[in-house]
């Protein structure tokens, strides 16, 4: 089985639903170590994405078409750092998904491109209590799964589990990038909101893959 534009649409809508359901949680996480707007920003951004999907005249023909629309919409509608960070991640991911439906290796390439976009834009390294700390283990798990011949769904499921663990593990980290870095030592003991929303995005990808591809 491979994952095509239909999956990408389902993934995007489920992500929007997850941002709605976790809006308050993300706001609270960000209030503890940031400016408290991450939940609101992600909710607003993905709501705008869904509105754009609803208004599409032609159905998208590739996964990349969907991801590019997500990228440009998030950049325009998410006010915080998450806008350019997610925007660049989706844009890079779109570039490698513009032709074929995704097999296991295609999913890995998409996730790798997403992580690369976040690193290029945010210049963060693993261990600095950012989105990178969810994406880095997710990509590593995806690479390992694909090497063993896993299906796209299995690759995404492995990535989602690793992203969730990575997000949890940000609790003990000291923030050295982003708004939380102003707090210094006081950032320790709180889970990073960007890593948390990243895990939600990747989990939504895995769940929808299981639905459409099994």
């Amino acid at each position, binding site marked *: 089985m491979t994952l095509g534009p239909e999956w990408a649409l389902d993934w995007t809508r489920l992500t929007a639903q997850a941002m709605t359901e976790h809006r308050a949680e993300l706001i609270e996480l960000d209030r503890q170590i940031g400016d408290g*707007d991450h939940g609101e920003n992600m909710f607003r951004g993905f709501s705008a994405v869904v509105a754009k999907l609803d208004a599409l005249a032609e159905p998208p023909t590739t996964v990349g078409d969907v991801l590019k629309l997500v990228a440009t919409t998030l950049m325009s509608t998410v006010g915080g750092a998450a*806008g350019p960070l997610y*925007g660049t991640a989706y844009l890079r991911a779109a570039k490698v998904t513009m032709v074929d439906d995704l097999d296991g290796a295609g999913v890995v390439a998409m996730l790798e491109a997403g992580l690369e976009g976040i690193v290029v*834009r945010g210049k963060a390294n693993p261990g600095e209590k950012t989105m990178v700390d969810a994406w880095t283990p997710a990509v590593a798990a995806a690479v390992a799964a694909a090497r063993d011949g896993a299906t796209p769904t299995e690759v995404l499921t492995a990535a989602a589990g690793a992203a969730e663990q990575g997000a949890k593990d940000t609790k003990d980290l000291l923030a050295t990038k982003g*708004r939380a870095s102003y707090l210094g030592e006081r950032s320790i003991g709180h889970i990073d909101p960007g890593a948390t929303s990243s895990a939600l995005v990747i989990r939504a990808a895995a769940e929808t893959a299981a639905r459409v591809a099994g």
Partner: protein
Amino acid sequence: MSAPASVALVLVSHSRELARGAAELAAQMAPGVVILPAGGTPAGLGTSFDLIFESLVEATDGGRAAVVLTDLGSAVLTTEAVLDLADEDVVARVRLADAPFVEGAVAAAVAAYGGAGLEAVRAAAEGAGAVFAGAASAPRVAATDTGAVADTAGGAQRELTLRNPLGLHARPAAELARMVGGFDATVTINGVDAASVLELMKLGATGGQHLVVRADGPDSSAALDAVARAVEGGFGEA
């Protein structure tokens, strides 16, 4: 009045009010320079991809170059994302300054007003942080009583006394910096570069203080005369 500035400024902030306020402050010292505030989002605090994109397009209209100043982290990220997606001919004429928002905007605006090019305007913005960081320990040149004009090694020097009570605060400092920028001469006041509004403000010179003005270069005597007229006229405040 110099020729229309070839470098515009775009001030990117999370806050609409902060961007507007900084633009207003900088514009006061640099009439005619295009200074575009790009602060906030339609939803409130934050940085807007669309607003920054539109501001950059407007700032670089008609072949102008533009220097962008930013406040907190995501202002930089959003600006970089815009530059990733903007047309190459626009991107080639835009520089992102790593500078303190307010001080950098003022310094860049005055440099642009004086006709500085793209890299020089960015350098003026980026140098603004160092100027203020050193302000607390800056040496103050002691006042002396020797007067009149003294020719020294091809240049000229003159001592003046500040007439207006507030001395070299922002507006007069900007007036002097703009003025000396128009002469083919290197002018210093109490040892600092008189073409730098921030260096002049850093002197903290108030009414009654003596200034040692030195000029070197072909226009040195004309520059000294102009500075003397402005100082002795109390910048219209005395």
